[in-house]
């Protein structure tokens, strides 16, 4: 787990506290995480384990009462925690995108779907000019191959090809192409009648459609890192399956790495390459998906998997381990899992176990495996 350059994202020893009236919530207790280029990393854990806080820390969007106490978040070689606000905003625009859990509350009710996508492109015309021009050219080239190009389109193609070199575009022309591109993206996320969808308001769409538009808002930026935080949790089971299918399709089409947050191990088994298990603000185990399901090392992971009779058949809610998630204002000392752990021994409450590579590419934070 070194910060090698094949990682798009590396999170090191990230510590986040929340200041509340009841006291300090030690929500993240040294989170270590890395996402390799092109991979889908699953982040699983019970509700309250700190998955969303991790995601929001990466985005630089923690609420006001949160405090990053220590650590590093390195995206594409830059430590976001030491960057200026403006730089982080630019990173959000160009390098990473987040899709949230509840598609209803995350879309602005008074703006059309189309305008909520277009505004992203219009935030930085210079950056998105080549993107929208290339998208239009792709269409025109396709038409050219099929021999359906009109004379007007031929002229447009020539002028756009010239433009691609200069990379300047008039405001109105940009808007026209951006709109065409946005509509195309709405088609990419399998929304029916994308032209019409473009003009619709969120309240006119179903939950699944809203989630697709939120995914479109992420795709339109061509992010290097896509963070998806429980994007199927708020949806009906059938719609969940459709969205997962879409995600699987997109995974192969786009060259983004995906951090897929979920509490559903079935989802992990289906689309992730690797998986990180989170417990009470710690990453307790990281491994390839197959390896983790075959050889869970951490007692917590073992408990999770034991709770599911057959991982391919049942959607496991991660609640069947004895005891309950600890209070993070007064977290247990040492390993935070030790009060619930069947294999706990005298060393466990004394200090936090280090993350060790117990098998090749399989990391675990537990004294049973050394440290």
């Amino acid at each position: 787990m070194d910060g090698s350059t094949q990682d798009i994202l590396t999170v090191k020893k990230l510590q986040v506290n929340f200041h509340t009236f009841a006291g300090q919530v030690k929500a993240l207790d040294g989170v270590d995480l890395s996402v390799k280029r092109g991979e889908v990393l699953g982040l699983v854990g019970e509700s309250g384990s700190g998955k969303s806080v991790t995601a929001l820390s990466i985005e630089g969007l923690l609420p006001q009462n949160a405090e990053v106490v220590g650590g590093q978040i390195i995206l594409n070689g830059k430590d976001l925690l030491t960057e200026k606000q403006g730089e982080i905003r630019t990173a959000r625009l160009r390098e990473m995108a987040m899709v949230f859990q509840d598609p209803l509350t995350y879309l602005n009710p008074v703006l059309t779907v189309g305008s909520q996508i277009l505004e992203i492109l219009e935030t930085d015309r210079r950056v998105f000019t080549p993107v929208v021009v290339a998208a239009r050219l792709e269409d025109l080239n396709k038409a050219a191959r099929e021999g359906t190009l009109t004379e007007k389109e031929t002229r447009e193609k020539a002028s756009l090809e010239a433009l691609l070199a200069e990379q300047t575009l008039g405001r109105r022309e940009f808007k026209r192409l951006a709109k065409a591109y946005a509509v195309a993206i709405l088609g990419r996320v399998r929304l029916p009648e994308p032209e019409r969808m473009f003009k619709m308001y969120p309240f006119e769409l179903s939950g699944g459609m809203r989630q697709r538009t939120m995914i479109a808002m992420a795709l339109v930026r061509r992010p290097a890192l896509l963070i998806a935080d429980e994007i199927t949790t708020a949806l009906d089971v059938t719609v969940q399956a459709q969205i997962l299918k879409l995600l699987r399709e997109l995974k192969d089409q786009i060259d983004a790495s995906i951090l897929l947050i979920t509490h559903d191990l079935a989802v992990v088994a289906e689309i992730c390459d690797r998986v990180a298990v989170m417990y009470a603000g710690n990453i307790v185990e990281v491994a390839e998906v197959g390896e983790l399901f075959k050889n869970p090392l951490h007692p917590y992971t073992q408990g999770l998997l034991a709770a599911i009779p057959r991982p391919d058949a049942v959607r496991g809610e991660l609640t069947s381990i004895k005891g309950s998630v600890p209070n993070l204002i007064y977290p247990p000392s040492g390993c935070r899992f030790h009060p619930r752990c069947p294999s706990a021994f005298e060393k466990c409450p004394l200090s936090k176990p280090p993350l060790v590579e117990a098998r090749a590419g399989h990391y675990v934070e537990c004294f049973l495996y050394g440290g």
Partner: protein
Amino acid sequence: MKLYEYAIRRILLMGLVLFGLSLFMFYLTRGFLPPSFALAPYITPRMNDAQKLALAQSLGVATKSCASFQAFSAFQQSCLVPVWAQYTQWLGNVLSGNWGYTLLPTAGPAAKTTTIFFSRFPFTAQLAVMGAILTILIGIPLGIVSATHNNKLPDHISRIVSLGGYSIPQFWFGYVLLIIFVLYARIGGLGLLPGSGSLATNCAICFANVVTPKAVTGAPILDGIISGNLHFAWDSFVAMILPAVTLSITSIGALTRIVRSSMLEVLRQDYILLAKSKGLQERVVIYRHALRNALLPAVTVAGLLTAFLFGGVVVIEIVFDLPGVGYTSLQAVNVFDINFVELYVLVTALIIVVTNLAVDIIYAKLDPRIRY
């Protein structure tokens, strides 16, 4: 339903509201006051008793069988007409524009109620509109700054201003402004701003000896602009500064607080988080995503604020000695000029219902979820 269908339905409803209000007002005045009060607005000084009786009968205030004006004045049973029967007569009169003569002592004999009312009304409207403009121009930005700098210095300042504005009595604030800008802030022996009246004559920043143009709209600033007499327009405007500021402090305070709290509420919403996560500039997040939603509650109170501004002019016209209809109506109450008061109430009510209609239409434009 289409917007215009909705508007038509609402306008019909407005008619109903005004009708109900006029009925209520009519009952309050006719049901409790002696019938001679109803006659008073229509009497001219040279009328003899027979003419007065004929007038009372033609107005439907006295029965046809009433023997003499003395009998009518003494409330003899044979002369009295039931209130509901009087109402239809009165309604016919006022709908055809006959509101009689005003009883205001300052208006001179045989001055028509409508003439006096509508010659003073534009001035009051000008004052109220200026108050409304100030309220919007100051209240909304102050609320936004307060919310976006929650618990920082700008928020504290804005909260002090709004709470102060909200709780200071207007007339007192008006006198304080007069003392500061007329008595203390003096340039070349003249006060910075004029002390009273509808035209600034003696002040440091106004023109001397301007010619009063012919009244077109009745609102001096507009008249000055229309007639090309910009000196007059400027002086009329300068004379409105202190009154408009005084009038608007309460509503500025109210609007600031509403915008602040709804903006804070909106900034906590999930869609703001998504907007930020998209990498939009702070400015876009605040003005495009937050403000539009935050203004919805503010728009709903616009009707209330309008009512408040039109009600508030009475005090302002007294403090600054202005020839508006608010103060005149107060005098009309004192002399039992019931037609004048009724006209005032109905016109004010009309303005408020129309504002509310406008508010509903604007609301629907701001919020696509609203269906008529």
